[in-house]
């Protein structure tokens, strides 16, 4: 009886058995990577905005405090997006003919708000509160990155749960003195491994509580 299969089939079948395994594992890996990639998370991706507002210019160039515009960040869950009136506090006087600012002037004339594109948009099943983070010494920079180096706004981090947990498990690595919360480019005055635990204690941060499901999902 003639052989049905060529001898090379032995190799082929072995390769395909292992191949399937690699394909499965590889596929899972690729999926996980895609899920964490800027394509999905939009981290570091600049979004189109009605006005090309530069945080770099206003923060680093002019030295305006975050709270000048984001007025409710210390007392509310929402940091606050400035009303057009805030823009016009200065721009009714300077750059009054700039074409770039026409949407701002139009909004002020008509009373229709500027429709910004949300850059940091958490899923609705997440409860997040700015004021508690600010009150416990978590700097703007820790989540939003070097906003003073962003001519156009993008997310510095994925805002995915694993990223949140990075800090909720080890807040002592990120906590800073309350006076430095709004500082960009903060450098700890002493070693963070000494300062961090001290601040966690002083500000009464209950680390065990921070990983309760209901802290963020309520």
């Amino acid at each position, binding site marked *: 009886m003639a052989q049905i299969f060529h001898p090379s089939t032995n190799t082929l079948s072995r390769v395909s058995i292992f191949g399937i395994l690699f394909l499965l594992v590889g596929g899972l890996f690729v999926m996980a990577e895609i899920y964490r990639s800027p394509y999905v998370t939009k981290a570091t991706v600049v979004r189109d905005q009605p006005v090309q507002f530069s945080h770099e210019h206003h923060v680093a160039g002019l*030295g305006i405090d975050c*709270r*000048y515009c984001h007025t409710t960040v210390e007392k509310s869950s*929402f940091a606050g997006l400035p009303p*057009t*009136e805030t823009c016009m*506090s200065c721009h009714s006087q300077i750059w009054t003919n700039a074409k770039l600012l026409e949407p701002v002037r139009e909004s002020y004339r008509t009373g*229709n708000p500027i429709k910004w594109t949300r850059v940091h948009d958490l*899923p*609705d099943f997440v409860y997040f509160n700015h004021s508690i983070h600010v009150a416990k010494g978590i700097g703007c920079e820790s989540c939003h990155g070097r906003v003073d180096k962003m001519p156009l706004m993008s997310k510095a981090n994925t805002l995915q749960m694993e990223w949140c947990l990075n800090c909720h498990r080890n807040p002592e690595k990120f906590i800073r003195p309350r006076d430095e919360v709004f500082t960009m480019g903060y450098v700890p005055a002493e070693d963070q491994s000494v300062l961090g635990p001290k601040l966690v204690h002083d500000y009464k941060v209950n680390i065990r509580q921070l990983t309760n499901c209901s802290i963020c999902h309520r």
Partner: protein
Amino acid sequence: MGKRAPGRAGWSRPLAVTLAALLLLAAGGCRLEMYDQAHVRPLRPSTFYGDSLSARPFIPGTVGRGESGADSIDPVSNGGATLSGMVTDRADQEKAALGADGLNASIPMPVTRVLLMRGRQRYDIYCSPCHGRLGDGQGMIVQRGLVPPPSFHIDRLRQAPDAHFYDVITNGFGIMYSYAARVAPDDRWAIAAYIRALQMSQNATVQDVPLQEQKRLQGE
């Protein structure tokens, strides 16, 4: 594995696997319903009111929960209730906020170190871009072309009552917009107190120094 399950004559295995895979793919779409729920987050657009705003302006006369009377919620957005923050009923609000002395009122709370520190912090955030950290009217925005505001170190402002600063923060002055929506009433007084400190810092005499310190100062 390998042995064919009995009683499944109608389904070939490849077809079943393909179907299962497709179902799994479709399940990936489910997450968006939890991502975008029906409730409104701050400043998210809404179609309910017709003007696309989910955040509603205050109804005139609104008093914030836990805050007392007219001095509490900021008078401007309280009465004006528009994006531009126009004041509608200035005289009434002023009377309510400043008390019987009106524009001649003094800072109504004890001027403590805490109040001054708060005033300095708020001043540096909201005032210093134009008025400068020193109060000399040479802030960064002025250096970028804004008409300079008067220095706080002129006679007119040294002699102005505390309430003048409260009033200007609340209602604006000249080209300065109202800061009522940005600076809470108590903070306005804190800023007024800090402006007083700034004024003193630029116009102090030896007599202002406590007697004990005076001797040390003159000895050096």
